[in-house]
């Protein structure tokens, strides 16, 4: 039989404390990960209107054709230029959330980063037509 050292009970406690500390760390890491996940959540898609050049890439690449846009060109006559410069101006831009698959292809293909993910939850609606969002609804920084 070996002698029981008085401080052996402390040694017994130590691993438990380690387990508790580890559990706390794990819980904290989990909370941090969850907060990160919420911040990065693909909740809805927002539009940076001035960045949009009406290039139609998002409209064409959307697998469900839920994006529609219209635009017109304006002539900008800059002093000293040889001829007026043509600029596309965005008139309307709509996303039908009732069709959208939230796949993010539009966000990926946009060459000017005019479309971006927002963690905000896309709210439900009592009518289908309320799910069609225009420039005003899409431009809100959520």
């Amino acid at each position, binding site marked *: 039989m070996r002698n029981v050292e008085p401080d052996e009970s402390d040694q017994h406690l130590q691993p438990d404390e380690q387990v508790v500390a580890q559990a706390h760390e794990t819980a904290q890491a989990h909370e941090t990960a969850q907060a990160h996940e919420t911040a990065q*959540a693909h*909740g809805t898609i927002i539009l940076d209107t001035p960045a949009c050049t009406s290039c139609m890439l998002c409209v064409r690449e959307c*697998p*469900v054709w839920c994006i529609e846009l219209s635009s017109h060109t304006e002539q900008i006559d800059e002093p000293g230029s040889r001829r007026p410069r043509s600029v596309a101006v965005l008139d309307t831009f709509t996303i*039908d*959330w*009732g*069709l*959208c*698959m*939230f*796949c993010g292809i539009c966000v990926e293909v946009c060459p000017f980063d005019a479309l971006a993910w927002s963690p905000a*939850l*896309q*709210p*439900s*609606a*009592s*009518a*289908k037509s309320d*799910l069609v969002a225009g420039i005003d609804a899409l431009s809100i920084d959520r």
Partner: protein
Amino acid sequence: MGTILGTMALIRRYRVPGMPHLRAHVADLGLACCAVEFVAAVSRGLLVPEPTEDASAAVGPEADQQTVDVLIVSGTLTHALEPALLRVWEGLTQPRAALAFGACTISGGPYWDSYAVAPGIDHAIPVTRYVPGCPPRPEALIEALAGLAESSVTAGKAS
């Protein structure tokens, strides 16, 4: 198939914790992948299974409140399944409300142009609330149920 759907919708009944004003019998009718998010909402405690008859009788004053039967349809509805969905809807007690959960139930989603898919469940039954997403997050389900509780249409418009 109609019997299977009827059983699915009738046996699973849930309540929303934190929303005592919404005494909703939530019946889940999962036709495709969006149904997984309903399960996620249940596993996270956002929805709790309906208490037994005895337990609900013991609630007391709340029992006087009107209970709304909410049918949550998630997934792709094919034309072939429309009569089955209609039967499930007609099997609910009044007042009742239907929730279209996900792109397929709202508009047919990626299958909007398919000959076999209904472009939205509102072609078969009246819908009270549309929840966008592919799939919508479990939080979206709770948000929609909250909207359902707030809107007066629950008892009126929904037939």
